[in-house]
């Protein structure tokens, strides 16, 4: 079963709270993420994972007249934003929660765990076998 882990990062004074950190704290955070990604690959659980550009560039798009894009935003008021995601393949939901908890505890300023909220959602699959 595949799950998407969506990492919601706290917004800072700018888009990235992370840009206010010391270089050491930033490096510790990035090292943690590299290690985490590597562990997922080694465990045979990695499917995909991407970081997203900050919400300062984000646009909400709707179809306007003749289907032309009408953009709105960015919106500055959100306290948290989607900073990135993983898709993992695991054999039980509890394993997805474990991985999410691990990502949530990524180190922040002074090495303290950020405890970021990670939204865990199962990815829809093809149909299960129709019983005999």
């Amino acid at each position, binding site marked *: 079963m595949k799950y998407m882990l969506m990492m919601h990062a706290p917004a800072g004074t700018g888009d990235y709270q992370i840009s206010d950190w010391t270089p050491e704290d930033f490096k510790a955070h990035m090292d943690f993420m590299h290690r985490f990604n590597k562990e997922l690959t080694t465990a*045979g659980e990695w499917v995909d994972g991407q970081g997203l550009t900050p919400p300062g560039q984000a646009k909400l798009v709707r179809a306007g007249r003749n289907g032309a894009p009408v953009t709105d935003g960015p919106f500055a008021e959100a306290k948290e934003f989607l900073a990135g995601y993983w898709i993992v393949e695991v054999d039980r939901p509890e394993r997805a929660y474990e991985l999410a908890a691990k990502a949530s505890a990524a180190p922040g300023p002074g090495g303290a765990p950020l405890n970021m909220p990670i939204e865990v959602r199962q990815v829809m699959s093809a*149909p299960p076998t*129709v019983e005999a």
Partner: protein
Amino acid sequence: MTTPVPGVGHLLRELAPQVLGAVARRHGDFAAAEDAVQEALIAAAERWPVDGVPANPRGWLYHVALRRITDHLRSEMARRRREDAVAGELWAEWAFVPPPDAELDAERDDTLTLLFMCCHPSLTPPSAIALTLRAVGGLTTAEIASAFFVPEATMAQRISRAKQSIKASGVPFSMPRDAERAALLGAVLHVLYLIFNEGYASSAGPALHRPDLSNEAIRLTRAIHALLPNDSEVAGLLALMLLTDARRAARTGPSGELIPLDEQDRALWDRGLIAEGVALVSAALRGGAVGPYQLQAAVAAVHDEAPRAADTDWAQILALYSVLERMSDNPMVTLNRAVAAAMVHGPAAGLEMLATLDEDARVAGHHRLDAVRAHLYEMAGDDERALAHYRAAAERTASAPERDYLVQKAARLAARRGVGA
């Protein structure tokens, strides 16, 4: 001497377990043998279409695989020599490669031994499935990765970890004792059943360049059936796969939408597969000990033999599910029995049976319980309850086509009742 022959991939998959068995038996280290055979298969897939298939393809693969092991050992020895200047005799043993015929003779047991190893209960199902497809099925890592929609590196790691688990568990590469064999065969059949399900389930998805897992599971099950023709559960599993696969063309619509059994165009069912499956399960039921796969195959046969949905012999299906329920403690069987009971005795009988499942943690809150309830309430004319359960089932399923089907059912009921969202 070589002859150009089409279908190299098919030949390689046939030969893979025979060659691996011989190399593993000779070398002792299953993990190293498996890597070496995989390299030999990849080399053959590149060379044979160009050079032609060698006169003795098994011997060719065997030699190339042993050569790979020798090369790996040699470089390992060179490394050790540099480290401690003590030269072992290890590689000398491998410098002489004997003719393979004697080694390859024991192929009958080898395929079984391999299956017992790859489907060992110490492995998780995903690991066992991946390893079985590579070691016994002869598929490449890239093909298996594409079948499961994961990156190749992920699948490579999954296979490598499976082999580490086997190594750590100390399972030797040898035929298990008789006492263990029944339990291990059960694990093998379960893994093949899961592979079949995976293929059957994802057949609606984007299928370009994906190996067909259902066909692969059928091929491997045929191979075990050929080795153990008197095992009635092996025959039962093969029959179940054939009788289910026979409906493949009819079970999805043009956009991949699910078509339930009673709405399928039965002219699209594969009569050849049905005849083969019916013959297999009939012989199995007459012959040996009755088991769950034979019973499920028998249910599939009853469906497949009905010219129209209305002709289905539900009383016989109900009887079969009753036997199956006594045999295996599985709430999903009770769900199926409730449907059969509703068809024979009316929806109230089915609903009454479902009430017992609300206490069962394995199925309470499962979308299938809601889906069956919805179906039975609809049969009973209780549209309001049916609608509520169709909606609950649609929200709970993790399968997109099944969700679409359930949403559609709910929408039709809502439109008929004139009640909105």
